[in-house]
């Protein structure tokens, strides 16, 4: 059993609200209403670079001073406004830190706002309990009651779990068809009224590693089988994913040639990744499969930290990473010391910490980028490999930053005072 070290969680990352950034685009007839404060709005407009072109399909119901003393938030008129402006099929009501502290009873609030033609679904997402990509799990759980119930008599079908863009979804659909695996659909689908049927003969195939709870609930509530395999990242993960999925459908297939071809296609990248040292500081909950891919490419994983690890949901990944230094809820200061001591060739780090790490002479890359890039499946292999090698190549190409003079005056808090 892989040993997981647990630290104090003093890391840098975002709260669960950030998942709105991609989910509102994925579920096209949705609206995401955050009950929160100025802070939530400032977070969304800054961290995701979400500049507003038109009225986006998300907004913050703003808790202001006078609302603090009220019994319950009055959202009815806001629902009218949203319905009028956006005509969504579903509204997701997201919790945030302040109403959590105020002990707002969200489930009851969502139920009371629900109208016959417009469900309002409670999504726990507060930064007190949820990090970065994690609240997608909450959104998908909220959608379960709206997935039609498949029965014992329905055929065995796969439901791909996790939001991916249309191109990736198309690839998975095509691949499944080729293998003769019947598809019920994707959760989430592009539209609220296109949710797949799920029942005892459904096989849930998770595409994203941050969806442990919804998978567990689908198993418990609908009797679905949850595929336990590697996540479909990299040639190794994609092969295992499809072989294990086919096995659920009674087929034993051998994709070794396919995997070899995929490795061959990225051989230039693999040459660069082999014998390098990589370090994951924890952010997007995709760290385990990404580290596993790098390890398969011959990279030594100095540390793979993640904000949350689920021993059951991540079982296959943890097994593949046997012997690697794995940390849950890491302490960033301790990581900084280890990075200084162990000199990794690449550090996968958060938006907050990447530039300062580069300032210390480390090759560092934004973890957030992995959450927004088409790195799944066979067609994602090239993109995935390139994500890592691009950083290494770029930094190798640039002139060495060997004189402090090039950074003078950039850090406001340490502008050197030149006294004559």
């Amino acid at each position, binding site marked *: 059993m892989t040993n997981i070290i647990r630290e104090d969680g003093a890391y840098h990352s975002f709260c669960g609200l950030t998942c709105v950034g991609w989910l509102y685009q994925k579920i096209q007839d949705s609206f995401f209403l955050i009950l929160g404060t100025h802070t939530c709005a400032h977070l969304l407009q800054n961290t995701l670079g979400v500049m507003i072109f038109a009225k986006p399909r998300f907004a913050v119901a703003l808790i202001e001073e006078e609302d603090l003393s009220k019994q319950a938030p009055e959202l009815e008129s*806001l629902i009218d406004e949203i319905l009028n402006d956006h005509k969504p099929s579903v509204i997701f009501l997201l919790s945030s830190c302040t109403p959590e502290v105020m002990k707002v009873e969200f489930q009851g609030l969502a139920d009371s706002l629900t109208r016959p033609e417009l469900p309002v679904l409670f999504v726990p997402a507060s*930064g007190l309990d949820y990090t970065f990509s994690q609240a997608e799990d909450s959104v998908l759980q909220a959608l379960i009651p709206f997935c039609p119930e498949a029965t014992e008599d329905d055929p065995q079908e796969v439901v791909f779990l996790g939001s991916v863009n249309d*191109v990736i979804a198309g690839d998975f659909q095509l691949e499944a068809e080729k293998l003769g695996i019947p598809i019920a659909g994707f959760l989430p689908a592009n539209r609220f009224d296109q949710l797949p049927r799920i029942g005892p003969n459904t096989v849930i195939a998770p595409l994203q590693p941050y969806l442990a709870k919804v998978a567990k609930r689908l198993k418990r509530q609908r009797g679905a089988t949850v595929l336990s395999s590697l996540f479909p990242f990299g040639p190794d993960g994609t092969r295992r994913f499809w072989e294990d999925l086919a096995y659920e459908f009674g087929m034993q297939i051998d994709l070794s040639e396919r995997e070899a071809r995929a490795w061959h296609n990225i051989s230039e990248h693999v040459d660069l990744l082999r014998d390098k040292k990589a370090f994951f500081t924890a952010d997007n909950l995709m760290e385990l499969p990404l580290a596993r891919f790098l390890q398969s490419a011959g990279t030594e994983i100095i540390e793979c930290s993640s904000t949350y690890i689920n021993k059951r949901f991540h079982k296959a990944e943890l097994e593949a990473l046997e012997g690697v230094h794995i940390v849950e809820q890491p302490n960033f200061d301790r990581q900084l010391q280890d990075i200084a001591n162990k000199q990794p060739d690449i550090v996968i780090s958060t938006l907050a910490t990447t530039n300062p790490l580069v300032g210390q002479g480390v090759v560092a890359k934004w973890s957030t980028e992995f959450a927004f890039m088409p790195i799944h499946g066979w067609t994602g292999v090239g993109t995935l490999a390139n994500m890592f090698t691009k950083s290494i190549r770029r930094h190798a190409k640039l002139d060495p930053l060997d004189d402090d003079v090039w950074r003078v005056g*950039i850090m406001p*808090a340490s502008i050197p005072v030149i006294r004559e």
Partner: protein
Amino acid sequence: MKLAYWMYEGTAHHGVGRIANSLQKVHAVFHAPQGDDYVNPIFTMLERTPAFPQMTTSVVSGQDLAMGTVRLPETLRQIEAKLQPDLFIICASCSTILLQENLQVMAESAQTEAEVLVFDANPYIMQEIVAADKLFSLLIKRFAKKTPLTDMPSVNIIGPASLGFHVRPDMIALRRIMQTLGVTINATVPLGATLDDLRNLPAAWVNIAPFRELGHHAAHYLEDTFETPTLYDAPIGVQPTLKWLKTLVAMLNEVAIKLGKEAIDLPHLTKFSLDGQSAPSGVPWFARTADMESFSSKPAFVFGDATHTVGLVKFLADELAMPIAGAGTYLKHEADWMREELADYLADDSEFLVTDQFQDVAKRIEDLMPALVCGTQMERHSCRKLDVPCMVIAPPTHIENHLLGYTPMLGFDGADYIADKVYTTATLGLEKHLIDMFGDAGLDYDKSTSSEHEQQTIHHDPVTIDSTITWATDAEKVLGKVPFFVRGRVRKNTEKFANQHGHQTITADVLQAAREALGG
């Protein structure tokens, strides 16, 4: 309750972060949930800081609340062990402030060597700008000590801070001016200052506090307590800069007389130019040249913070002879001062808009359809939709306001920069006449300023390069899902791949094989 889509101002604790990230050996600690750490990347990404910003979120989790765990003292001890700051600034966030905990007691229990300042940045009462200004005043009051004046004429520059609008080029502009005057800068606060700099502020002969938003309260305190004369104006535009220079010299000379020192003279104005031998600014002549004639019939709308909005309205009207269609601000607490300043520039009060709702500003612009908008990043977006030329003159900042080049707003150099920006933003004189008369001759004029969404609709796929190869419907369908801006490239590469592998028809399978082989 109202729906918020976008905010002009950041949160109170972001304001605290701006002060902390400006000062040396000062560390802000936010007693807050993990999510409030989002202010950190605003600094590392916009300012591209090569070191870690001096702020830490001492995480409060749901579990901590349930178990009664308080991590603050341990966080302080950890930071002290690593960084040995001279001062901790501690504040709560929008959620933790509701817990009504005694942060002072919690912080003191850590028994740090560093001083501790618990700042009550109540996010329900104040936002970024007021919080930053209040904290800055507190720091000045706490640290500034009576000090003998410097031997030579000197000034403090009060107000520039981390993430300030064009703050780096503005400081270059002010330093250049001081060098030309032969005046020493005693301290620049808070940007880059140490606590010793705060202590030594009263040593300066004169304080310069050009920003309404940050530093005026602190400067008033210094003036009241240490009798340091203060110049509160912002030198935006050529004539205001001239007046500002003369006032500054007069203020310095008053001190010189008191101290029995030699008075300073305003150097010849060419000395203020970049090469020391040219006109200090090109604006006065530029404004008189023939092609600037058309600007006298281009109405402008200006919206932003107090300092830049007032400065820009006056500059456009007084120095470029442009009509002012209206002005406004999102800073409600500055509205009265701005009204007074702009009374001569606006026909009546209805032309002055005070709102923090960007939709109201967009609506006003749509009603006015001015020839030029000077606004924030938000107005830039609104104007894209309306196809109105817009330049950004005020915070909130955006990565595009943190450029490498010399782009000051203050002084003679600033006047040149702003005038250039006005000139290149608005549709030009003769060119515009031609377009009005004859249309854009199908040149897709101004397409570059349309938003990404609009570009999608005007994009046409390039035609197939190889006519011997056909695309099956299923492959076309897949191709249609590829983002438009790479679709052409994928199409060409796939056809090349099909050629090499002897496929006459590109099916979805072939397309997938090609994408796999070619790496996405």
